[in-house]
């Protein structure tokens, strides 16, 4: 099969026929199921899996058109990175987090920033609620609407980190895609989290535990809730609060 694939690549790169491209799309399309499944993990259920797969297929077609077989790298390496990049780019452009929810999240982040500057410590929940002119129930209700879980949310969180580090707007997702031509070092979600490790270590104990178990030990939030002895909805609120507090600190 390797010879057949190489021949088809040669044929496609030379003649660019529609039929050759279609055969390559079919042959490599299973990669999209794999990547879309993993990038989708943690996204709200309102986002359709078939939409994510269709964004991923655009990424695969883009990879097929841009790939240079002569360079000797494995196509799968390049394709997986482009598929993930295409799904995340498309999600950003359709506002996967509704603007009204994003605005509320920003308000909570600003509250954390202001209070931490004033108090020189991590604020209590009731202080955050008071700053937002809400009671704690209203704050928790707001937090339940914002769910920053999964690789897409992590990629955005790091976009913040990178932006504050380098002053630019590229996210770590982009830099990893740029490195796609280096087949040895790829795909390491670890690398993304290494950048966050310092910031997570400086968080208050409970938030640090939730973030460490979710981002470094791949616990589900439900499992973390059971460990902490709180309800599922409560641990989701704690996680969202921890993320917004982390984001406010990274933005400085």
């Amino acid at each position: 099969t390797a010879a057949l694939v190489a021949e088809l690549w040669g044929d496609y790169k030379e003649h660019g026929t529609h039929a050759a491209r279609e055969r390559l799309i079919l042959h490599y399309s299973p990669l999209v199921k794999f990547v879309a499944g993993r990038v989708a993990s943690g996204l709200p259920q309102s986002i359709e899996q078939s939409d994510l797969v269709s964004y991923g297929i655009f990424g695969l077609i883009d990879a097929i058109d841009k790939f240079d077989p002569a360079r000797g790298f494995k196509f799968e390496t390049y394709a997986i990175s482009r598929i993930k990049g295409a799904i995340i780019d498309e999600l950003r452009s359709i506002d996967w987090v509704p603007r009204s929810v994003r605005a509320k999240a920003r308000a909570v982040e600003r509250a954390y920033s202001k209070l931490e500057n004033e108090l020189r410590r991590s604020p209590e929940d009731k202080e955050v609620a008071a700053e937002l002119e809400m009671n704690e129930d209203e704050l928790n209700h707001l937090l339940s609407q914002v769910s920053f879980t999964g690789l897409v949310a992590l990629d955005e969180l790091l976009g913040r980190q990178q932006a504050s580090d380098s002053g630019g707007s590229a996210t770590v997702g982009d830099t990893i895609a740029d490195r796609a031509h280096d087949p040895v070092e790829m795909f390491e979600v670890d690398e993304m989290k290494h950048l966050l490790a310092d910031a997570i270590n400086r968080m208050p104990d409970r938030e640090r535990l939730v973030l460490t178990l979710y981002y470094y030990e791949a616990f589900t939030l439900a499992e973390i809730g059971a460990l902490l002895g709180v309800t599922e909805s409560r641990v989701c609120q704690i996680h969202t609060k921890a993320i917004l507090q982390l984001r406010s600190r990274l933005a400085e």
Partner: protein
Amino acid sequence: LDEVRAMHEECLEVETEVSYVRRLAQARIDIVSAELDRRASGGSVEDLVARLPNILADEHPRSDPAHSRLPLHLAPSMAITWQRGLEHLIGDSTLLNLPTLSVEELGETREQLRTLEREMSDRRRSLHRVIDGIESDLTARRRVDQT
């Protein structure tokens, strides 16, 4: 403790590989099934390619965010060649030559892929039990350290 962490890391890498082969096998099964349906009911290969988003999407909805798990590695290191056992099935020429294969060949390939997929699902389930066991052990130790 370092040994437990090293074992955890190794299990995660194998789990990434096994999940990769499993998901590619599932995709191939579902594409071959769609091709067999196409032969029975008419329609072009072009239509099949246009329907890939539906064919490759999971049948069941995702679990809600509270039950989802961050994949710690996006994909396996591609330095591996998938030649053990039936794993070559995830890279063979079936999909390259899909419209030219006979109904019998498609049926046979699908059966082999199903065997591979079941093998991978079984291995994955047992790996998850081991990984989850190590993680609760690591967490228990961390809790002891913290108190």
